[in-house]
């Protein structure tokens, strides 16, 4: 099972890089032009993340350098250890459903501080990759058609987020 996951990681991207252009050529797509056409938006997309990242990294950098992070981790560790969640990723877990940019800032900080190949680095990477900004999506989608009563959507959204969080912790512990 876990070697399967590792193999999946190794093969996923090379396979996509093989299948996509080959199928495109067979379907008569001008591959080079189309690639360039799509890639054009890359610069602006990346640059647009700057304000979110600056806001979040300034806050978390102050939080960490001042020793406040240590205070939080020391005080919450015993409680969070009960559910197997390292206290270092708590700010990320709180931010993830609310704001993608803010969560990305926190995840980058964890990766930089503990190293991308550490347990915490991999956990933050998986959490960032697998959760979604549930509240943003609900507000945007329902708001766009004038739905005011969300019924049970919030509950299923939050249950899904908590499941992803638990699954990330469990799988990262098991695989690495």
């Amino acid at each position, binding site marked *: 099972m876990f070697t399967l996951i590792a193999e999946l990681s190794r093969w996923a991207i090379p396979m996509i890089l093989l299948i996509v252009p080959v199928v495109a050529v067979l379907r008569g797509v001008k591959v080079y032009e189309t690639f360039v056409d799509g890639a054009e938006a890359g610069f602006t997309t*990346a640059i647009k993340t700057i304000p979110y990242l600056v806001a979040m990294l300034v*806050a978390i950098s*102050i939080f960490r350098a*001042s020793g406040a992070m240590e205070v939080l981790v020391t005080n919450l560790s015993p409680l969070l250890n009960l559910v197997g969640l390292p206290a270092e990723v708590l700010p990320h877990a709180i931010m993830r459903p609310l704001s993608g940019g803010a969560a990305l800032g926190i995840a980058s900080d964890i990766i930089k501080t503990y190293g991308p190949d550490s347990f915490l680095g991999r956990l933050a990477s998986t959490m960032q990759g697998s959760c979604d900004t549930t509240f943003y999506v609900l507000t945007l989608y329902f708001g766009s058609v004038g739905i*005011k009563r969300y019924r049970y959507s919030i509950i299923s959204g939050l249950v899904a987020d908590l499941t992803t969080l638990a699954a990330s912790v469990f799988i990262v512990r098991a695989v690495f």
Partner: protein
Amino acid sequence: MTQLRHAHRFHILYYLSTPLHRVAVDNLIAGVVAVVNYVWLGMIVFGIIVAAVNGNIEVVTMAALEGANNAVKISISLIAIITFWLGIMKLAEEAGLVRALAWLVRPIMRFLFPSVPKDHPAMGAMVMNLSANILGLGNAATPMGLIAMRELQTLNQGRDTASDAMCTFLALNTSCITLIPTTIIGIRLLYGSTDPTDIVGPTIMATAFSMAVAILVDRMLRLYYAGRRW
């Protein structure tokens, strides 16, 4: 949108005309949206207080500048992977791979959305949105999702209460399987990971699991809420 909700929420008529449990849910949503602001402010204020108590207030300035500096570095380094991936994704779109994926999942869609006629435009838009989500095409997913919501709203006869299909659609949308988490791979690369993509497998597994749970929870809640006015 959020602002509109807030104005609505503080109006006296809203409290007089709305059942209490709905007021509670609306307050919960507004509260959660406000959490971003409080977490952000809290980290800065608490950080400065701890620094002052520890007698090393000067680290605050350095940390703020260093944080801003890192943020710009990260964004710049993301240009590479995002540009590359957007190119590949455009190819996938033009090659008809998104459509192919959509065609493959039609039977599943019929099971998930029994209230939507199988040839209704809502079905197509939802499939395209979910396929784009799976492939990590965030930019393409959102417009498709909004079109799907508009179509679902025609089936909902323009009411302001979410339909069963809408709830299922959003549950799937927020818990969707992710094949390639592009951005985070870029950041792992930036900080010298020996294998930046080794989190792809765990991400697929975690999202597949949460999607299954979301479908299950949605079904249970749909039964539980069936027959209620909202």
